[in-house]
C-alpha cells in the first residue's frame, strides 16, 4: 500500500498494485484499439477509455461494500438475474430468433454477463451454509448442480455457447475449491466427452462450423477457417518484438477480422511480438494471482470461495480467449477482458475486481468498515 502524509487516507489504502496492473492492461488495450482504428482514437479507443473509467470508479466504490452485504444479496441477486434470463428467452421466442439482451431504456443489459459473478456468489453462499462435514454427501452436490445447471442451460439455448461454457467452468471451479471429490469432476469430464458427439448433432449450423474449423482450420483458409488462419498469421508474423506499433499489416489491411474485439490479442502481438504478448499474459497472471491470494488469506468460507470463483472468472476469460486466437480452442466469442473493445466484459471483470477488493479490504481491516489507522 502506498503510504504518504499527503495522500488522503482512503485513497492510500486502496490496493494500488492491483489497480496499476488493471490500468496497465487497460492501457495496452487502448493503445491496441488506437492502432486497430488505423491510428485514431475513434471509433473505439476513446469510447473504451470512457467505459473503463466508469467501471473503474464503480469497482473502487464497490471496495467499501461489506462482506456481509454481499453475502445477503447473493440469493436475491441470483434470482433476479435468473428471471432476466428467462425473460430474454421469452422475448426471443416472441420476437422470432435469438436474443441475448434486454433493452432497458437506453441501456442494453445482457443478463448472461451478470450471471458470471452471480453464479460465484450464489455457490459460495450455498457452500458457506453447508456444514463442512456434509461436503462429501449427495446434498452438497445436487442443489449446486441445479443452481449452476438452470442458468447455464438457459444461456446455452440462447444460443451463446461461449458464455454457457464459461458459466459452467466458473461454477465448477467454485465447487472444486469447495472441496467436492475430484472424481466428480473427472466423471463430469468423461460425461462431456461422451456427450459431445450428441451435442454436436443438436448444435446450430454456425456452431458446428466453428467446431469443424477449430479441428482443421487449414481445410478452407479463405472460407470458414479464415478467422483462425488470419489470427495465427498475425500472431506468428509478429516474431520476437513485433512489426512495430501501428505497423501491423494483418490488422491494418483488414485481413484479421474482429481485430478490435475477440482477436485484439492478435492485433497486439502482431505489432509488439512475443515480448508484448508475454507482458500482457504476465499482467493477467499477476491479477489472477492477487485474487487467488485473497482467496487463500480469506477468513470466512464465503470469502474464500467467492475470491477463488471471481479469480477463476477472470482466468477463464483470458485463457479461453487466448486459446481461441492461437488456434487451441474453437472460436466461441469470448473477448479478452479490458483489452477487447466492448462494455460487457469490462463490466463483468470490473465487478469481479470490485468484489475482490472489497474482500481484500476486509482481510486487512477485519471488518467491512474502513477504520482509521495511523500510517506505518
Amino acid at each position, binding site marked *: 500500500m502506498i503510504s504518504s502524509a499527503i495522500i488522503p487516507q482512503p485513497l492510500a489504502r486502496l490496493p494500488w498494485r492491483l489497480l496499476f496492473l488493471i490500468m496497465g492492461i487497460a492501457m495496452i488495450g487502448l493503445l491496441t484499439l488506437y492502432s486497430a482504428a488505423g491510428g485514431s482514437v475513434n471509433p473505439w479507443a476513446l469510447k473504451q477509455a470512457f467505459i473503463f473509467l466508469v467501471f473503474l470508479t464503480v469497482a473502487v466504490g464497490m471496495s467499501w461494500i461489506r462482506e456481509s452485504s454481499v453475502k445477503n444479496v447473493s440469493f436475491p441477486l441470483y434470482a433476479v438475474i435468473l428471471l432476466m434470463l428467462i425473460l430474454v428467452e421469452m422475448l426471443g421466442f416472441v420476437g422470432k430468433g435469438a436474443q441475448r439482451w434486454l433493452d432497458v431504456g437506453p441501456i442494453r443489459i445482457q443478463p448472461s454477463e451478470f450471471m458470471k459473478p452471480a453464479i460465484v456468489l450464489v455457490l459460495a453462499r450455498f457452500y458457506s451454509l453447508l456444514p463442512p462435514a456434509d461436503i462429501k454427501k449427495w446434498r452438497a452436490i445436487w442443489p449446486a448442480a441445479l443452481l449452476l445447471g438452470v442458468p447455464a442451460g438457459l444461456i446455452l439455448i440462447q444460443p451463446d455457447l461461449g458464455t454457457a461454457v464459461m458459466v459452467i467452468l466458473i461454477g465448477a471451479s467454485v465447487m472444486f475449491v469447495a472441496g467436492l471429490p475430484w472424481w466428480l469432476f473427472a466423471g463430469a469430464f468423461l460425461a462431456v466427452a461422451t456427450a459431445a458427439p450428441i451435442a454436436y448433432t443438436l448444435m446450430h449450423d454456425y456452431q458446428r462450423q466453428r467446431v469443424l474449423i477449430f479441428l482443421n482450420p487449414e481445410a478452407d483458409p479463405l472460407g470458414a477457417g479464415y478467422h483462425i488462419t488470419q489470427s495465427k*498469421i498475425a500472431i506468428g508474423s509478429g*516474431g520476437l518484438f513485433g512489426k512495430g506499433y501501428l505497423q501491423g499489416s494483418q490488422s491494418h489491411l483488414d485481413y484479421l477480422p474482429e481485430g478490435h474485439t475477440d482477436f485484439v490479442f492478435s492485433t497486439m502481438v502482431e505489432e509488439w511480438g512475443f515480448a508484448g504478448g508475454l507482458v500482457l499474459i504476465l499482467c493477467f497472471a499477476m491479477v489472477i494471482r492477487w485474487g487467488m491470494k485473497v482467496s487463500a488469506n480469506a477468513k470466512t468460507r464465503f470469502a474464500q470461495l467467492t475470491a477463488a470463483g471471481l479469480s477463476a472468472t477472470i*482466468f477463464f476469460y483470458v*485463457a479461453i480467449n487466448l486459446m481461441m486466437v492461437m488456434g487451441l480452442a474453437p472460436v466461441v466469442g469470448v473477448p479478452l477482458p479490458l483489452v477487447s473493445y466492448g462494455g460487457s466484459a469490462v463490466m463483468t471483470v470490473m465487478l469481479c475486481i470490485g468484489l475482490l477488493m472489497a474482500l481484500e479490504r476486509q482481510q486487512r481491516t477485519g471488518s467491512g468498515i474502513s477504520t482509521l489507522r495511523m500510517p506505518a
Partner: protein
Amino acid sequence: MVLFGGAQAAVGTALVARLGWLAVAENDKYQLMSENNRVQLIVVPPRRGWMVDRYGKPIAINRSDFRVDIIPQQLKNPEQTLKLLAQLMKLDADDMDRILKDLKQGRGFQPVQVAESVPYEDYAAVTVRLPELPGVQATRGFSRYYPTGPAVAHLVGYVGTPTAEDYEKTKDPLYLTPGFKIGKQGLERTLEPYLRGTPGAQRIEVTASGRLVKELDPKPDRSGQTVQLTIDAGLQEYAARRMGPESGALVAIDVESGDMLAFVSMPAFDPNDFSRGIGQTEWKMLSQNDHLPLLNKVAQGLYPSGSTIKPAMALGFLKLGVDPEHRVYCPGGYQIGNRYFRCDAAHGSMDLHSAIERSCNTYFWATGLRTDPQQTTDMVKYLGYGEEFDLPLVTQRYGTMPNPEWLKKKYHREWQGYDSANTSIGQGYVLINPMQLAVMPGRIASGKLIQPRLLMGKPRPPIPPLDIDPRHLDYVRKAMTSVVNDHGTAVGSKLPLDGVQMAGKTGTAQVFRLGERGHQSNWTLRDHALFIAFAPADKPRYAIGCIIEHGGFGASAAAPIVRDTMTYFFDQQKAWAALAPLEKQWGGSLAERNDSQLAQFKAAARANPA
C-alpha cells in the same frame, strides 16, 4: 486450492509456450504468409516481340490500340455501370454474359476486360463519361498487327487469348491477364518462347477486400525478342496478290543459302481478324470455302509432282549412265504390259534434252523401265522430293517418294513396270509438298545441298556441294532453260527482261483419272498445275516452286505466276505493272477482295439465318 492455482499456472505456461511457438519458432512461415496477404502482384503482360523480314521490314508488329477494362473492387454500381457501358460501346448480350462471368470469378484488384481494339469513337465516348463510371478503365494497350494481312497468314499464323486448358497446363497468372495473347498458329506459335518476353508486375499493397492502399516499386516487363525471318516481305506480298483468286502455294528460296524468301498459301484468312478474335460469321465463311483458306498448303499440302519430277529423274538417268543423246521415238503413247499409256502429243524422236523441254512422257516411261528404279528414285529424293525439313512449322507433311523397298514395306508387293512408268512422270505414289517444289530446282541450280531456312538468326553451317557430276547438272539446267526460252512447254512465260532468263519445268498432276486430261467443268476434278523455276538461268540466284490447285495445265496456270514473281526480283516496277490489270479484273487487291467477300457472306447469312 493449491491444485486449482497450479492448474491455472499450467494453463498460463501452456499459453506462453503456444505464443512462443507461433511468434518465434514458426515466425518465418507466418511472416511469409503475412507478406503474401499484404502484397499482390498485378501482372503486366510483356510486349510481344516483332517479326521482321530479311531487310528489317515489319511482318508482325504491335499496334497501340484502345481497350476498356473494369477494376472490380472500384466498381460502385455494377448494374448501372454495365448498362451504360453496353450502351456506349454497343456491347451485345454475349459480351455482357462474359463480362458478368469474369467479374464474378475475378479477384478484386485484377482488371476484367470489357473490350479490346475499341474504335476511337467508342473509346472517346467512354472516356468522357468516366466520372459516372467508377471502376471502369479506358486505356491504351497493344494489339498484334500484321501490315500485309492475308499475305502472311499461313506463315506467321496468329495470336489469341489463352484458353482455359492453356492456363490449366501452366498455372501461369499471366495467362489470365486481360490483353495477354499467345501464339496460336504458324510462327507465332512455334516462336512463342522468343516472342513472348518476360511479364512485369505492378506490386501493390491491398486490403482484404481488395482496396488498393499504395503502390510498391514495380517490376518492369521485358518485351519479347525481335525475330528476323528470311522472308522478303515485299516479295511475299507480291506473290500472294499475284495468285489472285487461285487456290495454291508458292515458295521462293535463295539458291545459295536456302533462305526462304516467300512462303505463300492462298487463299488465306486475315490474321488481324483472328488475333482480335474472329466472329462466327467470318469463321463459317472461311471453313465452308472449298479453296480451304484455313489450310496452310505450303506446310501441309501434298500433291502429285507431275512432270516437275523430270529434271531430277533425268539426273538419275544420267548417273546410271544413260546416254543423253540416245533417242526414243514417241508415237503419242507407250505400251507397258497390257496397257497403253498416252503421251500428251506424238513428240517424234526425243533425246533427254528435248524430252525435258517438251515434257515427253514416252521418253521417261521408256527410260524409266530401262533403269534401276531404286537408284533413280534415290536421286529424286536426294534432290528434295519427299524430304522433311528442319523448319519451325507447327505441322509439316513431307509426302512420299516411292521406291521398291518402300512399296514392299507399305503395300507388300513387288515393284512393277508400271510403277517405274508412273514414278518417272511424277504420278502414282509420288506426293510432294510445295517447299520441296522450290528446294529441288534450288539444289539443281546452285549445285549445293541447300536446306530451306526461315530464321535469319540461326547459324549457317557450310553447305556441301551436291554429289552429282557437274556436267550432268549443267545438261539439265540447259534443258530447263529451253523449257521457257526455246520450244518448251512454258515459252509463254519468258521473263520480260533483257539479259535475264528463267529456267523451269511445268507439271500437270492428275487429280481425277489418268487419260482424261483436258477441261473439266467441275473445279475439284481439274488437274493441279505446277511449275518449278530458277533464274537467272546462267547464274542462278533464286528458285521458285508453285502449285495451283485444279489450275489445269502447269504452263497456263502456274508458270505465269512464277514468271511475274521472278520478275519482281529483278524489276519490281515491271512486276507491279503486270499485276495491276489482273487485280482490276479480279475485283481489287487481296485485302479489298477479302473484305467484299466477307461482306457478301454476311449479307447472305443475314438474308437466311438458318
